[in-house]
């Protein structure tokens, strides 16, 4: 006699054991330390912090280790941890113009005060596999290109004026609306997102959004699906101080600093009935050195401002509900992968119906053919 399948609990326990084994890999190799991940897989850590929306390199490194390097899974782990944290205080808005800049480039001016600072970038590397890196540190031949002169590490860099402010002074760039000091900034982790969304919660969603999704959407605007003529006005990366005003003190104190990447896209805008021709902007901000993310975010932010700027929406990247509802990797990954859960009750219902419909189709097919030949005869006659 058939006995229904049972034993889920034992199966799950075994799966977890296998997972732990697979994560550890060959026990003959030394285990990865969090310091190694945090110090050498820095961009993976940055991405996980950004999308996990927790600025903590050690936790992000742990999440990456635990997730076997699956960054979307690591983001998930970090988010699930974040949600348990108390929210103690809201910081003052960050002043990115006071950033201690390690990288700063502008594509719209050849030169500007503070100069173009390349910093640690892949940009002008030739993507040729460097087989020397396959060998451990000590056994590598010395690099034949001269080391670039040291920059920011030992010399403090004066705060650099932001390109947006330089353009803004001439009125060429649409000013960001002054924040209403009394208005609460929305928080998508406390309140559900509703549409139309304000720019505050929209930017929050984009900051947490999956990099790949934003990259593809940003790319689509460049290729004509919601074109808005972007220029990289400025991309800057470096350290920014976080300040809070404790209630008992009544003045601002610094509680530390964050590494951030900020991108301001400058977009062509022809003006409208009530607006003069000027440039508008899209804004992107990410933790660490997540530059691709910050740029994609800025493109999509600008695309989503289409209604506010009187452009007629139509492209996927301009559809706020489409973008914001599908941008979160934790939500998307969860729902796509939920298809692995048993669905056999629903499937059974479908089976019954499709079988029934096929029977009807087949019987109509047989009688339909006869009708057809009758019709032909009639036409010929």
């Amino acid at each position, binding site marked *: 006699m058939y006995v229904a399948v049972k034993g889920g609990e034992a199966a799950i326990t075994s799966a977890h054991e296998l997972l732990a084994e697979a994560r550890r890999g060959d026990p003959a190799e030394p285990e990865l330390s969090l310091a190694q991940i945090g110090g050498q897989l820095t961009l993976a850590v940055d991405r996980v912090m950004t999308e996990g929306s927790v600025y903590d390199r050690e936790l992000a490194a742990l999440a990456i280790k635990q997730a076997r390097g699956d960054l979307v899974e690591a983001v998930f782990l970090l988010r699930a941890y974040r949600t348990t944290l108390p929210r103690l205080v809201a910081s003052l808005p960050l002043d990115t113009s006071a950033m201690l800049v390690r990288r700063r480039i502008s594509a719209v001016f050849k030169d500007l005060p503070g100069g173009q600072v390349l910093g640690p970038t892949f940009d002008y590397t030739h993507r040729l596999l460097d087989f020397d890196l396959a060998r451990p540190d000590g056994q590598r031949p010395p690099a034949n290109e001269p080391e670039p002169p040291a920059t920011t590490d030992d010399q403090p860099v004066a705060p650099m004026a932001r390109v947006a402010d330089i353009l803004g002074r001439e009125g060429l760039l649409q000013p960001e609306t002054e924040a209403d000091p009394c208005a609460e900034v929305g928080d998508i982790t406390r309140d559900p997102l509703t549409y139309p969304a304000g720019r505050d919660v929209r930017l929050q969603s984009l900051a947490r959004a999956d990099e790949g999704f934003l990259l593809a959407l940003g790319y689509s605007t460049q290729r004509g699906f919601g074109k808005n003529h972007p220029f990289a006005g400025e991309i800057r990366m470096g350290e920014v101080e976080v300040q809070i005003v404790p209630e008992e003190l009544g003045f601002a104190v610094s509680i530390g600093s964050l590494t951030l990447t900020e991108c301001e896209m400058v977009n062509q805008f022809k003006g409208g009935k009530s607006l003069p021709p000027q440039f508008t902007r899209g804004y992107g901000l990410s933790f660490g050195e997540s530059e691709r993310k910050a740029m994609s975010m800025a493109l999509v932010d600008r695309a989503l401002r289409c209604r506010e700027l009187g452009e*007629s929406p*139509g492209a996927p990247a301009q559809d706020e509900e489409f973008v914001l509802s599908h941008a979160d990797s934790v939500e998307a990954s969860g729902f796509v992968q939920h298809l692995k859960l048993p669905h056999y009750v629903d499937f059974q219902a479908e089976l019954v119906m499709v079988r029934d419909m096929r029977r009807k189709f087949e019987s*109509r097919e047989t009688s339909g053919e006869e009708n057809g030949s009758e019709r032909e005869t009639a036409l010929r006659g």
Partner: protein
Amino acid sequence: MSAAARALPVPDAGPLLCARGLTKSFGAQPALEGVSFDLWPGEVLGVVGESGSGKTTLLNILATHLAPDAGRVSYDWPERGLVDVHALAEAEKRRLLRSHWGFVHQNPRDGLRMNVSAGANVGEKLMALGLRHYGKLRARAEEWLGKVEIGPERLDDLPATYSGGMQQRLQIARNLVTEPRLVFMDEPTGGLDVSVQARLLDLLRKLVAELGLAVVIVTHDLAVARLLADRLMVMRCGRVVESGLTDQVLDDPHHPYTQLLVSSILQA
């Protein structure tokens, strides 16, 4: 007053458009079976029937948006005589659609560029035909907005800022600016409220008469058909069940289906 009361244009040559044995099915579902008719220059042909009767399929085949499974649509191309429009090369087909014909969609958004001004919408076909003078383009656009009763102050506005009725009139202007000989209309008054419909119908009647346009208009609304059409074709299940002069068909319907249609709708 009915459309039939105005003087019918006298055809001096042959018909403008001939449909013969048009048949189309979608999968196992027949949509059109052996439809034939002639359309004469300056004539307005109404195609009526309920949804699913095949009238929209017919229109799409006539306008070359769809190819028939069997049958043929011929058009009297000046200096070339009757040509099989479905056999034309893509370039010629587009030329036909651009300069000889027009197509008015039920939803004006399908027939307009919503992200450019009304003036550019009206001027586009002229630009496609080679007009390269901004001042002249603008003047023609303004003239045509006037003909469809849209004030010159709206020339530079986006169609999105127009009401539904205005959008439809703009679409008509965009189609008529190249003075086509034949215009297809798919429920041009559908989706508009009654007072707006009446104004649009009046306007269409006037323009059709002024320009001597031939029109094939598809509608489920017999009142629209009575006002605009010289001749009617009643369709049901992909076949023409009755046709004739509009007043004749509506006042003295012969086919039981037409009788049903008339009695159910036209008791005003």
